[in-house]
């Protein structure tokens, strides 16, 4: 048996000896990690939203007013007739106008909502999971985030709408729910009924564009939409970083406390020929084990925490791998102070009384 296994024995036995403190530390660190995982899941979801919304229209190209890059973030409008012009252009299979707007849903759960006026078609537009797509003015299909059922009415700042369908997900602008209407319905709601649109979702590749318009891609449109949540995701990143630091602090404090209490043990080990690597290894084993167990426990904790979060939390295998890697880094960094203290212990202290 080599000195490496002695390192393991020393580290693990001490954890066993101080198991109650170890469990408390694991619990606290796991909770902090869990919060970090949950808010990271929110960030992942927010970052995922624009691509899903833009992608749900199955467009190859978006045509918007010249000088703009996305129909979802502009107030610049085009005549609805542009859609007809595009449909007649060679290379175009379909050209469907979209109206984008914002409104406020009234009631006890007053909140902002997105509005999308579109032309329902098979394979284009949001996926209806209950009821049907809106067919006439005054009807809406509602995405996640609003507590309504098919047949309910939704009172908004743009009027009252009857819910005829439910859509899965389809939240954007930092998790705001979305109301889907017919183009005419949306024009009435946000454009005073004028025949204007924010863009046209085109399948195929037009050989020419109507005057005063420009073409943009799904990825550009999604990236443009993601700009609206840039500061929110930065804030989440910062809070997540703070959570890692707090978790490192918890683990570091426990490991350091252990190092203080074990000063005499380290002196005895050094006096009996243990090298610094044996002592450092023992502390690293403890710190890493604490961090890795806490990071593994944080995933189920985050799954529980997400029920208390107002925004959707997206967890994936990547989240688990990320938290494990972060746990290892946090464990190593957290043990630095304890290691620094342990390797400086004077072996002559072993002659003192415990």
């Amino acid at each position: 048996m080599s000195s490496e296994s002695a390192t393991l024995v020393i580290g693990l036995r001490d954890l066993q000896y101080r198991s109650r403190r170890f469990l408390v530390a694991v619990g606290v660190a796991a909770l902090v990690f869990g919060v970090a995982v949950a808010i990271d899941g929110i960030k992942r979801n927010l970052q995922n939203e624009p691509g899903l919304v833009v992608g749900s229209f199955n467009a190859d190209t978006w045509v918007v007013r010249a000088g703009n890059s996305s129909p979802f973030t502009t107030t610049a409008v085009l005549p609805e007739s542009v859609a007809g012009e595009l449909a007649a252009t060679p290379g175009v299979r379909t050209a469907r106008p979209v109206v984008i707007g914002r409104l406020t849903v009234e009631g006890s759960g007053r909140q902002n909502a997105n509005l999308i006026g579109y032309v329902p078609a098979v394979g284009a537009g949001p996926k209806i999971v209950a009821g049907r797509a809106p067919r006439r003015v005054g009807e809406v299909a509602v995405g996640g985030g609003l507590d309504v059922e098919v047949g309910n009415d939704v009172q908004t700042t743009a009027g009252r709408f009857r819910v005829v369908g439910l859509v899965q997900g389809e939240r954007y602008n930092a998790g705001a729910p979305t109301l889907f209407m017919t183009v005419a319905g949306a024009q009435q709601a946000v454009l005073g009924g004028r025949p204007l649109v924010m863009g046209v979702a085109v399948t195929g590749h037009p050989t020419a564009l109507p005057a005063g318009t420009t073409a943009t891609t799904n990825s550009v449109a999604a990236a443009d939409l993601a700009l609206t949540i840039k500061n929110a995701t930065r804030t989440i990143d910062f809070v997540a970083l703070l959570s890692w630091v707090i978790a490192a602090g918890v683990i570091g404090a426990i490991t350091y406390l252990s190092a203080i209490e074990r000063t005499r043990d380290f002196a005895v080990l050094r006096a009996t020929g243990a090298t610094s690597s044996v002592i450092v290894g023992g502390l690293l084993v403890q710190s890493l084990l604490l961090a890795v167990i806490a990071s593994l426990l944080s995933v189920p904790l985050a799954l529980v925490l997400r029920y208390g979060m107002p925004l959707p939390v997206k967890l994936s295998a990547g989240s688990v791998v990320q938290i494990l890697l972060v746990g290892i880094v946090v464990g190593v960094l957290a043990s630095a102070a304890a290691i620094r203290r342990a390797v400086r212990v004077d072996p002559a202290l072993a002659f003192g009384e415990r």
Partner: protein
Amino acid sequence: MSDVTIRDLTIEYSSGGYAVRPFDRFSLELRSGELVVLLGASGCGKTTLLSVLASLLTPTSGSVRVDDTEVTTLSGTALTEYRRRGVGVVFQGFNLIPSLTAAENIEIPMRVAGVSRSAAQARATELLVALDLADRSTHRPRQLSGGQQQRVAIARALAMDPPLIVADEPTASLDYLQAEGVITRLRLLAAPGRIVIIATHDERLLPLADRVVELTPRISPYDRPPERNTLDPGEYLFHQGDQGQLVYEVDEGVIEIVRHRMDGSEELLQVLEPGGYFGELSPMFGLPRAASARARETTVVTGYNLRDFRHRRGADLHTKDGALDN
């Protein structure tokens, strides 16, 4: 064959900023198979000497050789190897690692030295049986009595079968029944090829010793005749750290009592003129001089043993204002 040779060992360290020198050109030779007891009062430097022998402390100067190994200059791998295989230490208060079982406490020094797990376990079992602890192998230190813990500590020191065992106050925390078991086993350890050095002030150990080294000399404070000394300006009567036997009275001139700091500077504690006396605590309590006495000008002092001095001064000895701690 293992011998220990200590030559001109000087150890000086700082205590509260002042220089303390428990050993000043100390020499000693020990032979294989000896059980040597270092006897002395608390603070006389017993543990310090053991620390040097265990290569846990580097002396200020001098040489300590264990067989052919010069212990004082070891470093790096050689130092680690010496601590692993050259010396076994029994610490005061046992100092077992509380999270490990008795067997693991014995195994750890072997395992950090690269001994295989099975060999370390076999050796630990052998030692536990030899020390009547076979049924305690899985117990943690807090589940063992003081005597059992000390026997585990002895087993740990023996794990690598070192030629030198040093034990610091091995019976200090034990009642007489437990002490007897520990003393008996320490005696058995001293056999050809091994030296056992025990630092203690427990005189129960003396009958077992092959040699007793008294670090606090037993000098009668009553049997020296008065000594008259004439000192030149700047000449020292005694130095801080010297053993003291006499109390001095100033007959003529001026004596300065100074204490030396580690940084080389000195602190003037007192100036004594004719009629003043100094240096009574060292012979009274068997302690080294805590300060130095130096003549400021040509000075004559007379030194008296404690009995003569008491006779001369009577109650004055006990009522002296600002009695010096020297």
